[in-house]
């Protein structure tokens, strides 16, 4: 059974790579309509004295969605909607030099909701006309700008767009639960539990379900139709402490299949855990002393810190410097040099569907530029930078796409972003051993205590504990800031957990799954009071009764 599965998978990958259709032979009305109008424009779109387009790609994102919001057991928002939008990409010039990377404008246009070739074509025609005029003008302007610059040889020789083989990949829609009554009830019931906690001053459950398909056709004859289902549950709470600090916290659960979404009671249990921790934080003392020493990150805090300091800040994304001189990512200059601790390795697994039997939501079969991502791509090997995520725009050090130009559903744009990321350490310990190392390191620095961070998001430590050297007891504190935690902090580490943790989120308008150590010990971080806290006066009128 296992062998057979692998065999089938290999055939599929082979067919995929050779550009053959391996699913659904029936004609796809949307793709055909895009193809016909894009080809007409490629053949005929030309303004005197200006170059015609040499490359056109058109993407239609098509989705039905549900949005539900509830607070304290009552609905505040519940809608179903259909949306179909179009996004053009048109280049004037050639692969060597074109208008890309120069004054690009982002257009998104509403497209007919019906599978009517004429209706779809009209939106494409209007879009491409606008984009062609801008692109043709931008191309001439870019050539003029380049003529006035002395580019370094390696920069001057860089292609503007890598040529890649065309691909045809047409997949069926996936089943998505769009039963609004189900989600209305889910949101109402889950949000109701907050009534038990008078300390919470505002709360809500928001649910977003999207049954989406992405259709792409380009003039290299790439044809793509792939599903992009999406479920998001969000639980939000906020409170004010006795001394007036406003606190808020969120629980996000994001997945691509209904089966991965917790049943209602399980979600409620997760929300209750968040609330209990949150109330404990509300009653916790403010941090009073500054500290600079070992800090242990645990659980989701590891994934979030890793996301924040390697991908959210685009450290491992290759970015071409624009002709105007802005942008670019100089991290690529560190290629084959030590970037972080030699104990750490980072791999991209974007082309991998499962890992150790677990479904990876960050998997995608092909990117928005028609490139199939590697099953495994070494980004950092034993601390040394080997590769960076890239699309079809070459950079000085990374000149080939590895299929990471991803479609962003939030902004309807295409940008370099991770799919699945595996972050491993060859210096691993059990969690108890790590705690011992933490306390030992703190003692060595003459501290009475060290710190453990268990929740962290957007550079903001949400749950920070003091752990005392003397007896290992823990004390939750609030008002904490970690001002010097950045990518460089990963150079000095004392070890990582031997247990792996999976974390999926839709950070970039598409899924990213991180597989990271369950705990991570930094050798030295600064821990200080957050000076940006404004302490509010207490509520004048008591909160209304919740029963």
């Amino acid at each position: 059974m296992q062998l057979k599965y692998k065999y089938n998978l290999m055939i599929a990958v082979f067919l995929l790579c050779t550009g053959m259709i391996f699913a659904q032979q029936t004609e796809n009305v949307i793709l055909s309509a895009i193809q016909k109008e894009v080809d007409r424009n490629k053949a005929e779109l030309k303004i005197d004295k200006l170059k015609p387009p040499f490359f056109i790609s058109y993407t239609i994102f098509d989705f039905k969605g549900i949005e539900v919001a509830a607070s304290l057991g009552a609905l505040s928002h519940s809608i179903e909607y259909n949306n179909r939008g179009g996004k053009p990409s048109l280049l004037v010039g050639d692969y060597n030099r074109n208008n890309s990377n120069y004054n690009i404008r982002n257009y998104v246009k509403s497209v007919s909701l019906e599978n009517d070739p004429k209706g779809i074509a009209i939106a494409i025609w209007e879009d491409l006309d606008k984009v062609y005029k801008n692109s043709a003008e931008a191309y001439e302007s870019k050539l003029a700008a380049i003529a006035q610059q002395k580019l370094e040889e390696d920069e001057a020789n860089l292609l503007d767009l890598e040529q890649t083989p065309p691909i045809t990949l047409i997949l069926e829609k996936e089943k998505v639960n769009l039963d609004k009554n189900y989600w209305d009830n889910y949101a109402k019931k889950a949000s109701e539990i907050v009534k038990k906690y008078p300390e919470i001053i505002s709360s809500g459950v928001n649910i977003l379900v999207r049954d989406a398909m992405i259709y792409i056709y380009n003039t290299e004859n790439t044809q793509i139709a792939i599903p992009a289902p999406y479920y998001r549950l969000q639980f939000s709470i906020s409170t004010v402490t006795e001394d007036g600090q406003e606190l808020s916290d969120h629980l996000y659960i994001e997945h691509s299949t209904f089966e991965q979404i917790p049943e209602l009671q399980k979600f409620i249990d997760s929300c209750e855990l968040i609330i209990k921790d949150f109330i404990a934080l509300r009653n916790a003392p403010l941090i009073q002393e500054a500290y600079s020493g070992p800090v242990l990150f645990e659980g989701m805090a590891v994934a979030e810190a890793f996301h924040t300091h390697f991908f959210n800040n685009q450290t491992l994304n290759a970015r071409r410097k624009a002709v105007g001189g802005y942008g670019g990512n100089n991290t690529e200059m560190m290629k084959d040099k030590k970037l972080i601790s030699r104990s750490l390795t980072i791999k991209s697994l974007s082309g991998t569907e499962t890992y150790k039997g677990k479904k990876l939501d960050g998997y995608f079969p092909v990117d928005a530029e028609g490139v199939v991502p590697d099953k495994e791509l070494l980004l950092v090997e034993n601390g040394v930078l080997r590769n960076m995520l890239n699309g079809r725009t070459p950079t000085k050090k990374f000149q080939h796409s590895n299929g990471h130009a991803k479609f962003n559903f939030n902004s309807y744009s295409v940008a370099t972003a991770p799919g699945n990321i595996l972050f491993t350490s060859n210096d691993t310990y059990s969690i108890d051993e790590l705690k011992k190392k933490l306390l030992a390191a703190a003692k060595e620095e003459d501290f009475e205590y060290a710190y453990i961070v268990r929740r962290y998001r957007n550079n903001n430590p949400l749950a920070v504990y003091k752990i005392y050297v003397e007896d290992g007891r823990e004390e939750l504190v609030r008002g904490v800031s970690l001002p010097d935690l950045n990518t460089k902090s990963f150079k000095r580490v004392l070890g990582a957990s031997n247990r792996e943790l999976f974390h999926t989120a839709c950070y970039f308008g598409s899924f990213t799954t991180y597989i990271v150590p369950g705990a991570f010990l930094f050798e030295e971080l600064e821990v200080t009071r957050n000076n940006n806290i404004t302490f509010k006066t207490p509520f004048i009128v008591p909160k209304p009764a919740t029963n």
Partner: protein
Amino acid sequence: MNYFDNNINTKYIRMKKGILLVLFAMFTQISFSQDKLIDILKNEINRNFILLKERPVPAYYMSYRVQDTKRHAITASFGNLTYSAPLHQRRFNVDIRVGSHEMDNTRELKAGSSGNSGNRYENNVLSVEDDPVAIQTELWRNSDQIYKDAVKQFENVKANVAVKVASEDKSNDFTQESSEKYFEKPLQIADLKFDASEWEKKLKQYSNVFSDNKDILNCSANFSVELVRKYFVDTEGREIAENAYSYRIQITALTIAEDGMELPLYQSYFAINAKDLPSDEQIIKDTKKLSALISELRKAPVAESYSGPALMTAEAAGVFFHEIFGHRVEGARLKQESDAQTFKKKVGELVLPKDISIFFDPKLKEYKNIPLNGSYVFDDEGIRGQRVDVVKNGILNRFLMSRTPIEGFSNSNGHGRAMIFYNNVTRQSNMIIESNNPKSDKELRTLLIEQSKKENKQYGYLFDKVSGGFTTTGRYMPNAFNVTPLIVYRVYTDGRPDELVRGVDLVGTPLSIFSQVEACGNDHGVFNGACGAESGSLPVSCVSPTLFIKMIETQKKAKSQTQPPVLERP
């Protein structure tokens, strides 16, 4: 009918009492059993006010406004559906005043102040279910913040008053008004007998008319049915629940001329009841006419700047009056030291020709069988909307008033309005312009031609349709207006057919243009649209006859520099 007329007969009195009894029974029932939201709002406002009025800086007034909106909007383009979705949302607004009626936190801060005197924007979402816990919690949290902001602002006001020169207008900051309770039976969108799939088919049919016209770059047929239920409670005893519902259809098309000028045209329909919407045949006929006109407009010559006589059709005149006149009789604006206060000192003076009268009346749902968009029973301050005869036989009589008094006008006449996101200011409702010396179309054309001849001009102008306009009423910029015509004709003095032209805006300053209004037609047209100002976008209507203006001024319209599409539309 004047309800305070002493000469009414006994039969009428008996009938009126009967109605009153029935209404009382009905309203009481609704209050206690059908409209739970009013009770929730009352409970929470009272719970908050009891404590907030005892604070060192006491709250002296609070109000809660809730707007429950149910809407279904549909759009089609070139025979294809592009949008169709229902919506149900509730938004709320909390208003808290600290200080006293004489001086409170809402007073305008004079220029140079470091305080914040802007109108605040709040997007507060409330549960769409009448759940007391969820609703009261939201109101409570918001009230606390609004009260604290009000106290802070009141300190800014006091400091500002102490350091700046005294205000020219010595009136209070808030009027004293009697309170009313008013309830309408709740409605459901289903009561409006609306079938989304039927309207989707209709819109596809309407927009498909444009499919045959390759000049058209984009088009849309839009439909919306909206049911808004507004709730208002305050600490002076007002309790109001009022419905407003309407249907709208708008057909739009856009072409681009060879010189890059984008030329939009539209046709819109507004009705309070579905039965009053035009037939499919009529809409398709109008759409075909619009399609032909837009092609004609694309080839029309560009008009040069002009000053001279002009006719302005009834609908265009409505927008014209709304912009140049309506905004200048909004009372609260006349209190602001930064406003030019064009009419403030002109009460009792002739400001328009003697045959013109203007009144605003939010109570009117239609005028001469024309449905009106700016109607309501109570304004957003819980004050009953009243007819206001602003100009009588050319003489300025009164202003539109909210609860912000001005010298000489110490009470509201029910024109305090705001989108739910903003606080109230004085705004327009249904503006009606009447003439007691109306002229026929023929007479107006004759006046235009004669005046043009007198000025040795080959032609005068006819402004047939406008898309909107804007005006500035402040002191720091020129006090001007701009109205954007869509359809303009030259009317030749030698009897040649009227010639369609494009590319002009109508510009000027208010006082000079009023003196040039010479005659009104015997027709009436309406502009049912939305007006955007300090308190957001609000539905308004302007009913006007065609106007003959002795001298108008136009300037060239700003235009895009983009060429028409390279390829023919698919």
